[in-house]
C-alpha cells in the first residue's frame, strides 16, 4: 500500500512576546489548541494523537508535558513528547499518518524562556569536562562561526546588521510579534556585544509563545481545508556534538537534511517560491540559507535580496525565537503563505522550504518541503 499524503489543515499561534508575564504555559497551550480547530469543522475528538515539543530545562520541571496534557487536549489520547524543536514533532506526526496508523494529528510546540535563564539552558547542553568550564556555549559557538564567516565571505558587520533590521521590520509588519522599538541597522550594530563579532541583536531573540499545527491524511485535509499545503518531503540530520569537529563554514547536517527532503519531493531549492528558515544568529540563518542550496557558500546574504526565493517573509527566527517552537512556527508560516496567499502580499507561491534547527551551533537540522 502506498504511503498516505499528509496535509496541513490549520495552524494557530499566540503572539510572540519577550515575556508573557500574565500567562502560564497551559494558558498559552490551551489557547492555540482551542484556536486551531476554529473554522475547520474538526474538534479535539477527531484528533488521533498529539505530539508536543518543549524543554524541561526551560520549563523548570521534569517531563513537563505531563502537567500540560489537559491543556494539550491529550486526555486519554496517544501523546508523545519530542525534546527537540517542534518541526521534529511534526516529522514524527507526519510519519504516523503516512504509515496509515492514524489520520488526524495535532502538533504543538511552546516556549517560555522568559521564566528561565537562556544561557544556562544552552550551557546544560554543552560537554561538562572540557567545554563548559572554559565558557564555550551557544554564544561562543555562534561567535566563532561568525568570525570565520566574515573572514571568508568578505561581508562586514554592517551587512549583517542590515539583514537583522530587515528581519525585525518584516516581523513587525506581520503583526504576530511584539516589538517595542524597531531596531534599525545602527541600533543592531550599537547593541551590546553578544559574542564578538556579533552583537546581542544579531542573535535570535528568545520569545514566549505557542503554536499548534493540525495535520491530516490527504482525503481529510482536502475535505476540511480549502487549499491545504501538503508535506512532500522531509529530512533530518544531526552533526557531531563537538562544534570544533564540525566542518567549518558550512552547516553540513542542514545540507544533508535538505538533500533528503528534496529527494522525497522531486525538486530542489531552485524550484521553491518561499523559504522559512531558522537560525540561532544572523550567521546561523546565512549558513542555513547556503546549506539548503539557496545560495553558494558565502553568498547567503545576496539570496535574501535577489528575490528568486522569498526567504523569511515572516521575519524568521531573529526577531522571534520561541526556543523549541521556532521550526514549527516556520512550518505554520509557510503553510499559511501557500494556503492563504490572500493574507500575505507575495503572489501565489506553490512550493515552500521549511527549516528547523536544534542544539548548540545548530547541531541538528530538519527540513520540510511543502506544496499546494
Amino acid at each position, binding site marked *: 500500500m502506498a504511503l498516505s499524503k499528509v496535509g496541513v489543515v490549520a495552524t494557530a499561534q499566540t503572539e510572540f512576546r519577550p515575556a508573557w508575564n500574565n500567562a502560564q504555559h497551559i*494558558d498559552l497551550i490551551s489557547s492555540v489548541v482551542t484556536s486551531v480547530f476554529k473554522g475547520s469543522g474538526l474538534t479535539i475528538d477527531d484528533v488521533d494523537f498529539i505530539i508536543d515539543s518543549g524543554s524541561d530545562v526551560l520549563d523548570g520541571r521534569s517531563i513537563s508535558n505531563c502537567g500540560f496534557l489537559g491543556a494539550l487536549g491529550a486526555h486519554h489520547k496517544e501523546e508523545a513528547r519530542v525534546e527537540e524543536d517542534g518541526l521534529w514533532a511534526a516529522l514524527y506526526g507526519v510519519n504516523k499518518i503516512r504509515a496509515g496508523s492514524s489520520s488526524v494529528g495535532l502538533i504543538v510546540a511552546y516556549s517560555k524562556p522568559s521564566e528561565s535563564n537562556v544561557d544556562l539552558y544552552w550551557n546544560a547542553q554543552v560537554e561538562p569536562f572540557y567545554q563548559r568550564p572554559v565558557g564555550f556555549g551557544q554564544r561562543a559557538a555562534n561567535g566563532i562561526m561568525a568570525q570565520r564567516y566574515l573572514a571568508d565571505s568578505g561581508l562586514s558587520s554592517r551587512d549583517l546588521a542590515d539583514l537583522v533590521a530587515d528581519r525585525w521590520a518584516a516581523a513587525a509588519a506581520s503583526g504576530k510579534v511584539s516589538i517595542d522599538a524597531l531596531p534599525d541597522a545602527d541600533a543592531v550594530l550599537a547593541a551590546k556585544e553578544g559574542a564578538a563579532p556579533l552583537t546581542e541583536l544579531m542573535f535570535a531573540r528568545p520569545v514566549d509563545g505557542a503554536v499548534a499545527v493540525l495535520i491530516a491524511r490527504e482525503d481529510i485535509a482536502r475535505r476540511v481545508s480549502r487549499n491545504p499545503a501538503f508535506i512532500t518531503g522531509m529530512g533530518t540530520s544531526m552533526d557531531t556534538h563537538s562544534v570544533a*569537529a564540525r566542518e567549518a563554514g558550512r552547516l553540513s547536517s542542514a545540507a544533508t537534511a535538505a538533500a533528503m527532503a528534496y529527494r522525497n519531493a522531486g525538486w530542489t531549492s531552485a524550484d521553491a517560491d518561499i523559504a522559512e528558515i531558522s537560525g540561532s544568529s544572523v550567521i546561523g540563518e546565512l549558513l542555513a540559507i547556503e546549506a539548503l542550496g539557496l545560495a553558494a557558500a558565502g553568498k547567503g546574504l545576496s539570496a535574501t535580496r535577489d528575490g528568486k526565493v522569498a526567504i523569511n517573509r515572516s521575519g524568521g527566527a531573529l526577531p522571534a525565537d520561541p526556543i523549541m517552537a521556532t521550526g514549527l512556527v516556520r512550518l505554520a508560516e509557510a503553510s499559511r503563505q501557500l494556503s492563504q496567499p490572500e493574507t500575505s502580499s507575495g503572489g501565489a507561491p506553490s512550493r515552500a522550504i521549511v527549516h528547523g534547527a536544534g542544539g548548540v551551533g545548530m547541531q541538528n537540522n530538519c527540513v520540510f518541503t511543502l506544496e499546494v
Partner: protein
Amino acid sequence: MFSAPDSYPIDLPTFHSEINLPYTLTPGRAAGIFLAEVKNRRIVASRFASGQVVAPAQDFSSTNGEEPEAFVEAPQTGVLTAFTRVDGHVIGFIRLDGCDNDFAHRILAELDDIAIGQRVEAEWDDSVEQSVLAIKGFRIAPDAPVGTVKPLETMEEPLGVIPYAMKLDYEHAYGPYYGRMFDEIRENGRFMGVRSPGSDIALLPPREIDDVTHGRTGTWKACADTGTIRGCSIINMEVYGQTRKVPYVYAEIVLDGASTRMIHVIEIDSLEEAKERIKPGTRVRAVWTQGERQGRVSDIERFEVIEG
C-alpha cells in the same frame, strides 16, 4: 489568546523557584586521565589507528565512533584557528602542534591583539586541579617552537567521579487562573476553583480549559478548607529534597466542593496510630499558618484529622 490572559490584567509578581541538582559526573577513561594528568602539567590526547591525534583526549572519535589505540601527550603549543569574545572572555579554537582537531579554550589576550594563525602556548594555573581550567588559557607566543606529540609511557589513574552542581532559577508566571487562586488564598484565606463544564463541582487548581473534555470551564466557586483523603502514603524514609522531617503523611485530599485532588501533608506522632487513623475516606481540615498569608499553598501549614 483564546480568551483569558489579556482580558484579565494582573499585577502579581512571578513565583520564584530554584532547582538545585547535585551530580557526580563520571568522566570515563579519556577525560578521567586528562583531568588527573593536569597536575603533571601534561595535555593528554588520543591517537587513533588512522594516525589522527585528538586533544583533549576522547574515548571515541566524535566523527566515526572509533576507539583510540593509545593516549599520548600533546605539545603545549599550537596555532589559533578561530576566536570570539563572550562576556569579556576571549575564547578560541587552538590546533595544538601535531594534532588534527581544535581545542576550545580561553585565549589570554585582548581581542584586538589576536589573529588567526598566531602561535600560542598553554599557561598553567597552579591553584586549579582536576579541571580543564588547570590550563588557565593559551597566551600569544609568536616564537614558540613547534612541538611534537609524544608517547605517554606512564599515566595517572583516571579520575572516578567529579562532584558537580547545577543551579537553575525560574520566575514562573501565575497566569490569570492561578493568579486569582493565590490572590484569594492570600487576601481571603479561601480556595477558589472554577466549575467543570456543566457541573457545580470545582476544579482546583482552576484553569481555562477542562482537562478531560477540553471545553471551557465555568464560573468561580469557593471550596471549603475541609475535605476527604482519597489517597495517602506514610513517608518514613529520608530522601534528598524533602522539606519536612519524617514521619509524615503525603495525602491527596479532595476539598469539599471540588472534584480534584490537592496534594498536602498531615503531621503524625506515631506510625502505628497513623496507620489506623489515616486512610482513604478520612475527613481532614486545613490548619492555616499563623501570621500574614503569602498567597501560597504553604499558607496551609498542614491538614489534620477531624476527630469523630
